[in-house]
């Protein structure tokens, strides 16, 4: 950076470091990654917080997300308008929640949102069906999917309303030691 054009002011960088799990270098790298997605759209100079959003179709071309079956859901979850358009802040937010150091609680919250396809604050059967179809690329037969959904909900549902509330989800996640290492994208 130095005597080249500055991307962020020190103040901004400090705010980012306080609010995310990234160091200042990583923020700058994230910015360059963000800019790569739409070079004509995203300016180098971010000191005046320009209101620019990169659409979902461009975001999911990132190699980190390209092959992920949940890519649209991830991007939608973190976009402020819910359509999948990410501002730089949302972009940073996304990778901050998915980075190695973010705590289990935060990861659980966002994982819940990602799996909650219809956004009704519960993971119900339809959500599970969608998750399963994405996970196995539609290899399971509908009967098998239904069976897995029933069983999974039965296992994790604590209050017997046959859908998973956040507390059910949290309780289930707390028993899965691999969740933390799996719910992690290296940037």
């Amino acid at each position, binding site marked *: 950076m130095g005597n080249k054009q500055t991307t962020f002011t020190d103040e901004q960088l400090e705010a980012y470091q306080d609010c995310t799990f990234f160091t200042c270098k990583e923020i700058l790298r994230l910015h360059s990654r963000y800019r790569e997605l739409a070079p004509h759209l995203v300016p180098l100079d971010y000191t005046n917080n320009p209101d620019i959003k990169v659409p979902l179709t461009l975001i999911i071309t990132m190699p980190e997300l390209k092959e992920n079956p949940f890519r649209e859901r991830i991007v939608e979850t973190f976009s402020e308008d819910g359509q999948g358009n990410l501002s730089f802040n949302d972009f940073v937010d996304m990778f901050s929640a998915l980075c190695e150091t973010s705590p289990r609680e935060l990861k659980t919250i966002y994982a819940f949102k990602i799996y909650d396809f219809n*956004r*009704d604050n519960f993971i119900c059967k339809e959500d599970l069906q969608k998750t399963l179809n994405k*996970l196995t690329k539609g290899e399971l037969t509908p009967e098998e999917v239904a069976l897995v959904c029933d069983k999974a909900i039965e296992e994790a549902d604590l209050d017997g309303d046959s859908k998973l509330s956040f507390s059910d989800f949290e309780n289930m996640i707390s028993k899965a030691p691999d969740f933390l290492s799996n719910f992690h994208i290296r940037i």
Partner: protein
Amino acid sequence: MALNHTFDLNHPLLEAGLESPVNEDTVHDSFSQLIAEQSDNEGLSDAFELQQLQRDLDEEGQDNVVRLSRRRHDDRDRRKHQRNEEWEDDERQTDTLMGEQWSSDTLKVLSSMPSRTIGRSRGAIISQYYNRTMQLRRRRQSRPSIRDFSRSARPSIRGYGIEADITDAEGVEVSKRDRLVNNLQNLSVSDRVRMLRAMPLSVAEKSELRRLALQKERHSHSGRRIPCCSQLKYYIIIALRHSWYSWLSFLHSLQLWQVALKRVSGRFGTAVLSYFLFLKTLLFFNLLLFLVTGVFLVLPQAVHPPLLLDGRRRFSGLELLTGAGYFSDTVMYYGYYCNYTLHRSCRDNGGEPNMSVSNGTRLDCVLGHLSYKMPLAYFFTIGVAFFITCIILVYSMSKSFGQSFTIDKSHSILAMKVFCSWDFKVIKKTSVKLMSENIFIQLKELLAEVSYKSVQNTTCQKLGRLMVHGLAWAICIANTAACVFGVCRFSEYMHQNLQQSSRADLAAKNPLLNEASLLAVPVLVSLINLLLPGLFNLAAWMEDYDSPSVPTYVSISRNLMLKVSVLAVLCYHWLGRVAADPESIGLTCWETFVGQELYRFLLMDFIFILLDTLFGEFLWRLFSEKVLKRRRKPVFDIARNVLELIYGQTLAWLGVLFTPLLPAVQILKLFLLFYIKKSSVMMNCQAPRKPYRVSQMTTIFITLLCFPSFLGASVCVTYTMWSITPSTSCGPFRELKTMFQAGKRWVEELQKDNPNLSALAMAHAYLVENPLFLFVGAGIFLIVIYFHSQVVDGQRKIINLLQEHIENEGEDKKFLITRLQFIHEQNRTHTRRVKSQDSSC
């Protein structure tokens, strides 16, 4: 009797019961305010809801209860087609539940249940706050669409109360934000940062909160007319934070192999990544060891080289393999280190005040100058290095245990598989495909397991299986025993060979051949290490196990058995045969010889790993691709490779006493190994097909590194220090009976020079020399570990109990809801009857 039983929802007791979050959250006192405020809204919103309910239900509303009831509609429809099992047992009640619209009272109770309000999680509260601001903002932008609303799918379930808010929404939101800002402001700087980071808000919102908090802080500071010293403090804190961040980013840039690790994990997922992370951990252990020995042993000795009697030997090239010859008289080995006090220039701060007997050394500094006592330094450096390593190992082991600590209960495996098995790191297309196939297969297996709970095996089958297992184990044990015996005999034979050659003075005739023959034992051992695991795999191939994780454990235990027994035999060979009678093979310095042996073993291990990589992975891939025309690539065997790393590390720990520079060799080896393995894996292997429980395996490997590996090495080193007589003509401990006496002598000298220090000598005599103390120390350590494990066990039990408790609560809730609904129904029919009676009258 149930008829006159009415549920008074405004009853204070009931109200208090419903608002359990307040009680629960006394810990997060900074948030209890928010929660309390939320509960305050309840009364208002409750009233509002009821009105809302009485209005038309399918009005587009953000009220949660409305959504809830709508969902109930859907549920009901669905349940007409497929009956939910859990309701089936109380069919009668189910009918009343399903057949009728939920009564508003039931809905009210349902919506204020703690599980739906999640008052416990502070993150949820914050996110709820965020939801509301988002909604308000959107409303202000006047584009209220359902889609917009529901995206704010932060897991706050109780979305109601918003309509009530709307009258003075602005004010409420502002005050809420103020409260949040106040909370932030009251925290210390590090707490604030931690909390900001963990908030499930968007960065923009967070930085706004942060800005406000900072502004307020500054404002209050300036408002209070703070004295300049606290202003100074404030600036110092800011400067410190600045430097802390730059230090962090510096540290981050030091992180090794960031890109390479990302590529590996992107292609192969967490399982293969764990091997490379383990390698990295070992590298840091060795770096630490190297730093300690380098700074305190190698550097001082290299600055003051001792006088060598005979000239340097010629460098022939074979030394790189054998470590002998040219390298013998260098800082690499024990024998080079001197047993006197190094006098340093007066500015240096060495170790002890100069009061030692200097055995004919350079006395160019007059008395009073600082000096460095080599034997003592040697003794304490090795001791401290082992101690630090031990502490780090135990710490990382306990941390790893904590992370993988789970209650192994069979339930919710399927749900866990669905939600937690996708590895978000993986970015390569074929690996993604493999992973989804893998998950598919696992799900099918689990389903099969669920549907046919357990297939009973006949006794005959069981017996047959047992016999096969027994046979496989017998083969493995017999082979291991044979190999160990072979190593024992062969090393004895080589030892005798050496004795003969030293007697006949053959060494002078053909020194090169003689040196090369030293390589025979390491080659044999490495060959065994390379070939026997293949045989074990063959034996494992004929057994079949129910669970996919058992074969991994079996293979680990067999490999471990082999490596431990081979190392035990070798240790016996070095410490029992060589050290007991060094003159018989013409050695003046057996420590150097053992150090060289360890160097050779380490190097041979490396070379054989390379060969294995070349033949086992590269050529095998070529063969199977070109000749067998198979599309499959070999699978990277994580367990075996990690065990090889552990074996190498044991050698390094064993050798550090005799070869202070062995950690440097190990660092070099690991460094090269990383790149070789990485490129080999990238080129030749495919992602593993079998499921692999990463965190559990990592814990096991760390434990193995600690228990047989490190503990074994430190026992050997301690034994050498305590009870083996060091060589009389070389090394820092010559003229001593044991290495350990270096400390004793030092204490005696101290006492002689300064009688006041006699207490120290007493302490030394009683604490260090007395084996009882060691036993007591080890005993205390074991007791602490035992207590720890007991505590963990207790916690596990408590968690189990709580889990049961939660399940029971769920049952209770179900029961209460049906009961409530039932009472409501009865009430209604009763009033209807009364009404009809009225009308008939």
